[in-house]
């Protein structure tokens, strides 16, 4: 049964939509220190939806600027190029993820809500645990489930078998692998390879359900792994598979995460998450 779908799944990855041209162009500009905020603004302003979405997120309670961020130029100055890049990507993902995902039974918009929720939760975890490294957990978290977009229709076709496998004490992602020969984490990593994303982000997406199986253990990976399960528990983006995932004990130990931290993070994230949703 395994190989019945594999060929089609990987073909699907090849034909997966690319990041919008304007976004990839701006990514390059944000990496280039010589490019001014004005030049970036000039590039984005032709895409009114993109600008509006970025500004809406920049003005959300999550970032908590006292004055209104009125332009993209101001956003770059106030938040820094890196943050604007994250919001730009979030806005592009909103367009790509904003559809019903069959197989996982996620209604339209729910995958994006879940992705933003895991990003915010991951950042709250960095704060709670007082890590001061600048790893881009936001971006990795935002993209962790992108494989579901390409795998959903195959999951739908085989949902009976996947659920039967999952009943044998397997997580949903393990059951996907048994029945389909691959899983949404691997497919997600393949898509990001096509998009030429950095290796640490690809590694996090690839192993977000099984951090101990990665050859490149990283804090970013452990954080996204835990933040994802916590968001599913809160019910943001939990679809057909419910809570059929397991938390890796060693990841918790590496992070030094305790019960008090977990519930404190959960209590603080909800409001931030709601404030970031683009309608």
């Amino acid at each position, binding site marked *: 049964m395994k190989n019945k779908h594999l060929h089609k799944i990987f073909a699907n990855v090849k034909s997966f939509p690319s990041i919008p041209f304007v976004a990839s162009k701006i990514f390059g500009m944000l990496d280039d220190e010589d490019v001014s905020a004005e030049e970036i603004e000039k590039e984005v302003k032709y895409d009114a939806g993109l600008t509006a979405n970025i500004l809406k997120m920049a003005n959300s309670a999550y970032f908590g600027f006292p004055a209104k961020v009125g332009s993209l130029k101001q956003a770059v100055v106030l938040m820094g190029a890196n943050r604007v890049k994250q919001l730009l990507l979030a806005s592009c993902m909103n367009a790509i993820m904003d559809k019903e995902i069959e197989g996982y*039974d996620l209604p339209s918009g729910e995958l994006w809500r879940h992705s933003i929720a895991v990003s915010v939760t991951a950042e709250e975890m960095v704060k709670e645990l007082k890590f001061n490294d600048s790893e881009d957990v936001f971006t990795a978290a935002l993209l962790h489930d992108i494989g579901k977009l390409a795998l959903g229709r195959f999951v739908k076709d085989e949902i009976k078998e996947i659920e039967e496998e999952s009943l044998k004490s397997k997580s949903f992602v393990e059951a996907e692998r048994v029945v389909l020969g691959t899983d949404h984490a691997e497919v997600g990593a393949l898509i990001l390879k096509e998009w030429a994303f950095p290796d640490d982000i690809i590694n996090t997406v690839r192993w977000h359900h099984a951090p101990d199986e990665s050859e490149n253990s990283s804090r970013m990976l452990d954080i996204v792994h835990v933040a994802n399960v916590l968001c*599913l*528990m809160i*019910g*943001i983006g939990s679809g*057909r598979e*419910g809570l059929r*995932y397991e938390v890796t004990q060693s990841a918790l130990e590496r992070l030094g995460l*305790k019960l008090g931290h977990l*519930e404190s993070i959960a209590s603080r994230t909800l409001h931030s998450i709601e404030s970031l949703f683009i309608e």
Partner: protein
Amino acid sequence: MEYVVSVGDMKLGKEGDLIITHALGSCLGLMVYDPVAKIGGLLHAMLPISRINMEKARENPYMFVDTGVPLLFKLLYEMGCQKKRMIIKAAGCGNPMGNNEMFKIGNRNYTVLKKLLSKNSLLIESENIGGTISRSVNFNILTGSIIIRSAGTEIEL
């Protein structure tokens, strides 16, 4: 009227209203109904104990079981519901797979609920609790009927 209760929220309804909540994972869904007054409420609480974040609990008592449940009952009593007629049903409180106790927030939500109810001599009439599933609840305030949906299945609570 149809009301949708989001995470960390509560809605009251009267005869003819429908109260819905989606995606109860480890959260508690508590449905309380007075069949004579035909008034009911649905609480969707996320965490067991408010002590973890008192500031949030003051802002939003429905986020926590220990502050949300008493407030739900208080408001129902103020609307004329009577304790002896209350029908109490519970759903949700799931947990991820595995034995990690830290992540069993669902179990802790349920334990705090049971303690609160027993302290007030109240009993749960029926429940659909635990496991690794995500549940949605449809609470019809006219009839008191409660439908739980999960992964393509449907049961009446």
